[in-house]
């Protein structure tokens, strides 16, 4: 009996040692697929390290649970910017030395090549994505199409239901911008009780015509089903539906709210060295370009934008579809992670109370 135990223990240990697969956790769907094609497969080919991609609704949640329980099975995770900051503050993440990141393809050092804020203490940006709103082009055509963020709230000129993400983040900002607050003043306004009231007052004007969505895939679905005539959405989801599936969707970039998506490494990751190699590989100029050719989220390195990016279908030019394109940045707001780390719970409580009124 004792012998059997010893042998099985040894075998288990051996198996776990041999099972040194690098595990990357991302969001699944079109986004997870893009990251698999752009980062995971090429990394495996180049280094021979077996790498697997696993999905999660929001990788920040399982990672925290793993580190707190001391059983970390994920090496690299894709998390929202605010979560990369918050988890880093809480000591959940491994710091990443910016000097370890490769220089740009044009030789610019990494710290100058990355856009401002794209490299934080514990995270490196993989792409820049945006909350935008999109409409059905069969319902609004030509001059009658919505053009500004205020149009989203104009039920007279643009009839039909509106899809909105069920949560305070990005919705309150949208309401303020539609109410005429310039992008640069949005967070100072939202820091005051009057500003919060103003945002909710603006939302009141369309409240009865809103269909609320929660999962990213729901937004294009609502639009495709004809349930709504306009909806806020993650820009990549609308792009995928329009280009891959030929849906009649168009994006309005005015008032877009963008942020970096970050690769982070949880403390105690089983394959720390490979994880760091993977992050450096994925966030190199070529890595970011490969990702931007899979899905319409912008690269966070200047050097990645030097040559035009072509979508994987071989003909669609990515430039106009990226949040980082200059045309799309005319009236754009960067999500303030500091603001949301401070006020997420508070404003969400207020938001839920407002919803149920």
């Amino acid at each position, binding site marked *: 009996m004792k012998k059997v135990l010893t042998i099985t223990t040894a075998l288990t240990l051996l198996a776990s040692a041999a099972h040194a697969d690098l595990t990357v956790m991302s969001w699944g769907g079109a986004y997870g697929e893009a990251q698999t094609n752009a980062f995971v497969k090429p990394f495996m080919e180049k280094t021979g390290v077996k790498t697997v991609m696993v999905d999660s609704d*929001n990788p*920040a*949640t399982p990672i*925290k649970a793993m580190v707190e329980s001391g059983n970390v099975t994920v090496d690299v995770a894709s998390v929202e910017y605010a979560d990369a900051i*918050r*988890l*880093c*503050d*809480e*000591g959940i993440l491994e710091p990443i030395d910016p000097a370890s990141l490769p220089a740009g393809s044009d030789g610019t050092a990494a710290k100058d090549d990355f856009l401002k804020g794209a490299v934080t203490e514990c995270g490196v940006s993989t792409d820049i994505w945006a909350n935008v709103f999109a409409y059905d082009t069969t319902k609004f055509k030509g001059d009658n199409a919505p053009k500004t963020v205020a149009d989203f709230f104009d039920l007279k000129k643009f009839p039909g*239901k509106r899809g909105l993400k*069920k949560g305070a983040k990005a919705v309150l900002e949208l309401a303020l911008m539609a109410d005429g607050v310039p992008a640069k003043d949005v967070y100072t306004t939202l*820091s005051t009780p009057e500003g919060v009231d103003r945002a909710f007052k603006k939302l009141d004007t369309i*409240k009865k015509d*809103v*269909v*609320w969505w*929660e*999962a990213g895939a729901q937004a294009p679905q609502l639009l495709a*089903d*004809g*349930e709504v005539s306009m909806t806020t959405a993650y820009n990549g989801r609308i792009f995928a539906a329009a280009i891959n599936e030929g849906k009649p969707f168009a994006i309005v970039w005015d008032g877009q709210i963008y942020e970096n998506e970050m690769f982070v490494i949880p403390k105690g990751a089983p394959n720390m060295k490979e994880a760091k190699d993977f992050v450096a590989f994925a966030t190199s100029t070529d890595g970011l370009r490969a990702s931007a050719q899979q899905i319409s989220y912008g690269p966070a390195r200047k050097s990645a934008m030097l040559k035009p990016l072509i979508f994987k279908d071989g003909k669609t030019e990515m430039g106009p579809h990226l949040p980082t394109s200059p045309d799309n940045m005319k009236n754009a707001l960067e999500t303030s992670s*500091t603001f949301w*780390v*401070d*006020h*997420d*719970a*508070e404003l*969400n*409580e*207020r938001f*839920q*109370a*407002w*919803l*149920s*009124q």
Partner: protein
Amino acid sequence: MAEPLAAAGNAGAAPAPELLTTADGRPLRAALAKAQTRARRRAFLLVVPLLVFVLLTFLVPIGYMLQRSFQHDGFSSAAPALDAWFAANPKFDPANPPEEAYAALVDDLKRMQGDRTTGIAGTRINYTVPGTVSLFKSGARDAETLTPPFKQGLVATNPRWAEPKIWLAMAAASHNTTPEFYYVAADYKLTDNGWERGAPNERIYLYLFAKTFLVSGIITFICLILAFPVAHLLATLPMSRASLLMILVLLPFWTSLLVRTSAWIALLQEQGVVNNMLVKIGLVADGNRLAMMYNMTGTIVAMTHVLLPFMILPLYSVMRTIPVSYTRAARSLGATSWTTFRRVYLPQTLPGIAAGSLLVFILAVGYYITPALVGGADGQLISNLISFHMAKSNWSLAAALAGMLLVAILVLYWIYDKLIGIDRLKLG
């Protein structure tokens, strides 16, 4: 009459144990007891795997989560100097803390900067005073350069450091054990004057608790009304046809919850199958389609469908054991069909009704996915907010909310036991 009999019984039984022995001469009683102990031990060994499993995967995690609802050492472990000061001055004036308090705070801020615990400590205070994570972060950065008097210096960097509620929050957080998460879960807010009931447009949790219980009650009732005839039919049909019907009940039960919920979305949404049909046959104008999805109606319809088998199965198992002869006897004695049902049949199905209702109600109270997908603005239940706080890493508040839910269910269970009796429960 009774006494002599009892005496006779005693007289006959008393000497017996001394007489009876086993083949090897041991007293029979001892031998029997030993054999029984051995059998019991063996039976216990058989149960051990399940016991360990339940303990490890159920009781320990629940206990651990509940512990989090009143314990949090994020601030106290990061700020030893303030802990000591608060312990020595329990009755300080939060509106005007003295210089030593600020000196301790600056000392701790420096330590936090070195230990990288600013975020943890700030997050803990942020749970009761929103907007303080950034306050602690910038405070910790500035602390290095500060010189006495610290009070003036720190307040100059950010006037919020003089706010009484921040001092109240730090004093409370310097204890590991705190009831604060339960205050928040009961819609109280920390103000400069201590804990006060939140403004009406900020109260949410108690309202959602009430709504969750109301909706669960409605769903349980609808399930009962729908399940009763089906279960009766199942129990009275001949076996061959009953099993066919049973498959129809079980098939949705085996189908993924997500698939069933999405199917309801496809059916009931404004451009969905039902509305399209109503428009086509002219019952509803095209511009006036019924809103049956993304609201309370959608939540109740989808959840009733998902939970219906949990009502049908216990009802069926009870109804199958009720002999037909009882109702026949009642009818032959002159009872009307309604009286027969009310006085004879219904009372016998009570254990099934009770079991099904309890099961459906408890499952409905904790339901999360369906209200999240089809709930819309007014279909939110308390579980959706618990999940929000889990995702946003305020596990303590999530645990406090879950703890309150657990207590409420236990109270209901207790009432149920008093009214109907838990021994009459029949699950299948």
